[in-house]
């Protein structure tokens, strides 16, 4: 039943909207909930509905809409599995399969709220419950444009996407707008690339638009490589059609006939969903030849990546689609002039493209109603680390870090003290207490030394060692460096070595200076974005946490009590009963003693495995994190 006119689509959507809106059960089957067994919850609901011996209104069980519906990520992964009941919008947390019966009977049957399953806040004596999703603090400050359908439609159903005015933007564009008008609207909306640098999307499209060529390409970058971000995955899994519609619109705007989605092979569900969505869209005439009876023809292919972070860099991604090693090439030529197969190409990431249909459908002004002047719209963040509400949140640009961490994110786990946020992944930087009132937008983050990046936001508390974290990021980038240019290939290797020396307590001050110098050159001289941003975690932590570095280097102390080399095991002579248990388990034979004389650990030989600590029946083995630096120096 391919749609050949815009009118046909509109009348179909109208019919869909007229469907009776009874109670409906949405079970989050995003990755977070799946891993917490939400599949079983979903299956239990299906069983119960099939058995049909509950007092549930018949119109909720109609056939054309799946009920219960498995959905994409609802965001609050921490509290999964999540179940949402429409039309009220009740959100249940930590639902177990055995809760299903109760929910059907009481909530669907009688309209009652099950208090045990709703979001609860304990404020001293007072217990506050928030049964409705929109009221839950995690969602209160969110604005959903990109995630507009995530968690409230069945991602495998085209009709459910259409019911949310899906593909209307595409119909509107190809039947009633010129490509220049589409670009104009995107330019006017102020949409900026959500994948990293924040380049204005309209401008990028314009570059490719004006180049004359027999073929052009659109690439959707779904190779989300930032080790701490999963929004692209969530959108591709939870609302694949919005991505396709965005790609098709981009294709129309620049004059391309083909699009590629480059998606991580580690995201098998996203691959499956996207492939199914492409098939459905082709069958319905949203992809293929003469879309909506217009002169525009467009098709999309999925290419699976094979595991290389550097393929997030445009020229490397292109090489990878061409079946080559994902090594970046110098720009110019820019992909908009010479990209995939040597043809003009634009590359946008999933989040950027998912914004596009909404902008075309609702207008640039509407979009500009969110966010700030220079960064309109929203940004999706993957909140993780030592934060209460880990999960996926879409917030308007211009929100402060404090609001993001303490309101949306619910503050630090276990009420510990906030230390820093790491934002932008391995290309980003660490921001501290002093930045909490910074607004989240491209320019202010950049001026603080971090970047928006793809939106990974990792919260760190006092138990996180900042130097160790910098080492972690450096080991990531040096492992993911393609090896083409020397600053990145060798520079990151030596930076990592120095950082390793620092956490191992083997470093000196002049090495710290060399680390900084190398970081500057790697940033300055590398060929591609990966190398140019790889030093950011080091540079920002050196800037904001220099004391912590110096503590490691000079005093051989790890203030966060993380770096094992800074730890010492000591035997308390008062408590030691000279039983010799510790000496027997020591794998390196560094504990010596005689009967009746307290045992002693040879610090030179000790490998800090902790075996003695574990076996001592008298708690005589102690952990000491404070080596005295003067002793260290003289030794």
């Amino acid at each position, binding site marked *: 039943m391919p749609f050949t006119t815009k009118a046909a689509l509109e009348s179909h959507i109208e019919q869909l909207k007229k469907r009776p809106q009874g109670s409906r059960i949405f079970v989050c089957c995003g*990755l977070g909930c799946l*891993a917490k067994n939400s599949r079983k919850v979903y299956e239990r609901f299906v069983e119960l509905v099939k058995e049909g011996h509950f007092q549930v209104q018949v119109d909720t069980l109609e056939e054309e809409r799946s009920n219960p519906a498995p959905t994409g990520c609802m965001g609050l992964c921490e509290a999964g599995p999540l179940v949402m009941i429409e039309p009220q919008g009740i959100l249940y947390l930590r639902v177990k399969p055995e809760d299903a019966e109760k929910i059907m009977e009481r909530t669907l049957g009688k309209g009652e709220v099950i208090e045990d399953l709703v979001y609860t806040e304990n404020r001293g004596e007072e217990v506050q419950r928030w049964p409705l999703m929109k009221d839950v603090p995690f969602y209160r400050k969110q604005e959903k444009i990109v995630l507009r359908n995530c968690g409230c439609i069945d991602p495998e159903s085209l009709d459910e996407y259409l019911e949310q005015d899906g593909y209307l933007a595409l119909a509107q564009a190809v039947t009633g707008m010129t490509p220049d008008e589409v670009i104009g609207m995107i330019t006017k909306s102020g949409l900026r690339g959500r994948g990293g640098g924040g380049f204005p999307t309209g401008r990028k499209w314009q570059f490719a638009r004006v180049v004359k060529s027999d073929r052009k390409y659109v690439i959707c970058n779904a190779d989300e490589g930032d080790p701490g971000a999963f929004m692209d995955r*969530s959108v591709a899994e939870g609302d694949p059609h919005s991505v396709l519609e965005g790609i098709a619109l981009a294709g129309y705007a620049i004059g391309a006939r083909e699009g590629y989605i480059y998606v991580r*092979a*580690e995201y098998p569900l996203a691959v499956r969903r996207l492939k199914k969505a492409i098939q459905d869209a082709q069958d319905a005439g949203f992809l293929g030849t003469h879309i909506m009876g217009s002169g525009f023809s467009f098709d999309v292919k999925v290419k699976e990546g094979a595991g290389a972070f550097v393929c997030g860099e445009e020229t490397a991604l292109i090489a990878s689609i061409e079946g080559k090693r994902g090594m970046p090439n110098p720009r110019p030529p820019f992909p908009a002039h010479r990209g995939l197969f040597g043809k003009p190409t634009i590359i946008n990431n999933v989040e950027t493209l998912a914004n596009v249909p909404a902008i075309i459908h609702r207008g640039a002004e509407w979009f500009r109603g969110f966010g700030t002047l220079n960064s309109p719209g929203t940004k999706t963040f993957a909140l993780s680390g030592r934060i209460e509400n*880990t999960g996926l949140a879409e917030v308007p640009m211009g929100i402060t870090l404090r609001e993001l961490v303490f309101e949306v994110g619910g503050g630090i786990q276990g009420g510990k003290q906030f230390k820093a946020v790491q934002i932008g992944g391995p290309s980003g930087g660490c921001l501290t207490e002093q930045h909490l009132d910074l607004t989240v937008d491209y320019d202010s983050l950049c001026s603080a030394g971090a970047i928006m990046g793809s939106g*990974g936001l990792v919260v760190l508390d006092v138990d*996180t060692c900042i130097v160790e974290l910098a080492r972690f990021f450096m080991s990531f980038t040096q492992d993911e460096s393609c090896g083409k240019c020397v600053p990145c290939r060798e520079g990151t290797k030596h930076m990592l070595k120095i950082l390793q020396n620092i956490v191992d307590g083997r470093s000196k001050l002049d090495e710290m200076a060399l680390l900084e110098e190398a970081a500057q050159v790697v940033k300055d001289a590398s060929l591609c974005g990966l190398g140019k941003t790889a030093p950011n975690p080091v540079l920002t932590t050196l800037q904001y946490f220099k004391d912590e570095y110096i503590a490691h280097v000079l005093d051989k102390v790890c203030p966060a009590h993380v770096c094992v080399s800074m730890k010492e095991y000591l035997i308390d002579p008062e408590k030691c009963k000279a039983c010799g248990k510790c000496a027997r388990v020591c794998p390196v034979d560094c504990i010596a003693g005689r009967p009746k004389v307290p045992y002693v650990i040879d610090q030179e030989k000790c490998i800090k495995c902790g075996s003695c600590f574990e076996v001592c029946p008298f708690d005589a083995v102690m952990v000491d994190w404070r080596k005295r630096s003067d002793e260290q120096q003289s030794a």
Partner: protein
Amino acid sequence: MAVANEETVLSRRFEKVNTVLEKYGRNPLNLIQVLQEVQAEYRYLPEEILTYVATALGISPSFVYGVATFYAQFSLEPKGKHIIRVCDGTACHVRGSMKVLEVVREQLGLRGEDITTPDLLFTVETVACIGACALAPALMVDEEVYGQMDQEKIENLIEEMIEKEKGGDQ
């Protein structure tokens, strides 16, 4: 019996390689897809098969080797039947992914540089973020994600898998 199975596996695998080459039109632009499917069949990329792929696609073996060694997904060494990927993304790292890795390896008796058990049942590797940050620390067994891992959970999971494998043999 086991040997006979091995034989049919050999020729079936090679047949599959040819099917894959045809499916992708022997087009070098599809090299990565070809390698992905070949690896799905052999569980790694044997040298002679890579050479064969190069011949069939009309490209140099060094090019194929270069691609096969570039991407983390490809392996030139035989891999286990099940792949356990311990996530070492940022979120997992700050929540103790290295300890998870240690426990997993210990449970499977892996030592030194080994990543695959001698019975070729399990391969353990780290992966840069599987996008399950909210469940940190997480790991993936084949395509299944397991979150919020601790020592006990890991021990149970691995015991279960070993049981299953042993049961399957009999």
